[in-house]
């Protein structure tokens, strides 16, 4: 599927216990754009992502994926378009083997049986996990589970790929592979992350959430250069943008 844009208008959501998670969120993401959603714990990042995939429904305002308004009647269409990778890969993997897990989405989309295997191989190849194809999903290491979880969504060829903390608990090599993969995808990308270095490498644009509201929305270099904004929203500059203490001392 070709890349699809997203429009969020005045989105608000309150959890049943009264916690206001999102308030008047408004932004647009163009088709093919890569956007990082950053913010401290409880800023509303995960709740926002769940709205993009139609897992949570807007209590106030609206979410549009391409020309489709996210609502109960359009969920099938929305889920064909938006691929959501959950924060914990154990939440994403539920079939007995990696092959069946990666095939699950395409099979539900009605992809022809003779095309399924090619999609599974392609998706696992993209995340460097082809060797895991016949392994039981629940017996993988965390990094392997993460790779398989991303493959389960890639095999659906979504127009929008939404990832919640994709680099958490990954070792440096797996994280580098993930960054290279995300940069190569060419789909619309929304990445909620605490890993600001990953955001700086993958996403030219960043949205900062704070207390369920959009605190800032701009180019990633501009956002990450604003130390006062970062401090106010519970963040800090990515390591890659800070002066190296060793080099600075020598200068």
């Amino acid at each position, binding site marked *: 599927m070709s890349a699809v844009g997203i429009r969020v208008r005045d989105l608000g959501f309150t959890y049943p216990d009264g916690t206001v998670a999102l308030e008047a969120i408004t932004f647009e993401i163009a088709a093919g754009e890569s956007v990082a959603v950053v913010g401290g714990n409880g800023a509303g990042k995960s709740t926002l992502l*769940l709205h993009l*995939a139609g*897992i949570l429904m807007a209590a106030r305002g609206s979410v549009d994926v391409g020309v489709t308004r996210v609502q109960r009647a359009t*969920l*099938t269409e929305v*889920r*064909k378009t*938006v*691929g*959501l990778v*959950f924060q*914990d890969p*154990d*939440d*994403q993997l*539920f*079939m*007995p*083997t990696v*092959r*069946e897990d990666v*095939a*699950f*989405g395409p*099979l*539900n*989309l009605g992809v022809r*049986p003779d095309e*399924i*295997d090619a999609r*599974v191989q392609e998706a696992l190849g993209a995340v460097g996990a082809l060797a895991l194809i*016949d*392994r*039981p999903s*629940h*017996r993988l290491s965390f990094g392997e589970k993460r790779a398989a979880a991303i493959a*389960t*969504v890639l095999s*659906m060829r979504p127009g929008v790929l939404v990832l919640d903390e994709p680099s958490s608990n990954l070792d440096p090599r797996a994280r580098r592979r993930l960054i290279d993969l995300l940069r190569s995808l060419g789909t619309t990308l929304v990445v909620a992350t605490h890993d600001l270095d990953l955001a700086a490498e993958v996403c030219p644009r960043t949205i900062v959430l704070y207390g369920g509201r959009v605190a800032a929305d701009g180019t990633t270099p501009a956002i990450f250069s604003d130390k006062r904004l970062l401090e106010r929203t519970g963040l800090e500059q990515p390591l890659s943008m800070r002066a190296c203490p060793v080099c600075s001392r020598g200068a």
Partner: protein
Amino acid sequence: MSSTETGLYDLGRLDLLAAQDTPIHRVDPRAKIIATMVFVVVVASFGRYEVVALLPFLLFPVSLAALGNLPFGYLARRLAVAAPFALLVGIWNPLFDRRAMVFADHFVAGGWLSFASVAVRFLLTAAAVLVLVGSTGLSALGAALGRLGVPRVFTAQMLLLYRFLFVLAGEALTMHRAWSARTSSRRAMSLRSYAGLLGQLLVRTYARAARIHAAMQCRGFSGELPTTRSWRFTVRDGAFVVGWVAAFAALRLYDLPQLIGRQILAVLT
């Protein structure tokens, strides 16, 4: 590693065994299901005091386990876990059934014979089902049951329940580790700690199951678990079913141990 952790890891071993490639693994799951169902029905059809006539039926699970490279020790441990439930069913027989019966030229209370019969039947049927799962895998079994006409809602429930077992086990393992890390002595968990842990386990498992369900919905889940496997029922699979059903019928009609005993006696006298 604690016995709890070992037990939880052991839980997933059937999946690894099912992923092997042996002649038994290559048999169409439908053929194995049909043969196992006939086996269970035939074993159940024996009289309540039959013990020795049942023993030749061990051939089915033992040969399949051997050809399917399923470790006997592992199967025995799995059977031992379920054995108390079966033995509980038959343990009252010696108390209530005291009629005198002849067994191997000795008088024995009928209750002991029926108890032994229950135990042998449990061993045979449970071993056969364990070998079926270990040589096929639960997902292939689910798909095969669907093709045999079992409603998809049941096969989906079975597969999800199996997945939920690992969710539950995973959460239990994490909580057990957290408990162990903060327990200075080797003493057993107090009843109060158990109650707290069980409550937490329920809440955490429910929350995780909800997240898994959300992930399934994101990928188009609508109540059915599709499968990638496409089995073809070949002549070899047909021969597997016909061969075993014929063997079961022969063993049901002729008391093989008795026939062998008579032959031996005839030779000796």
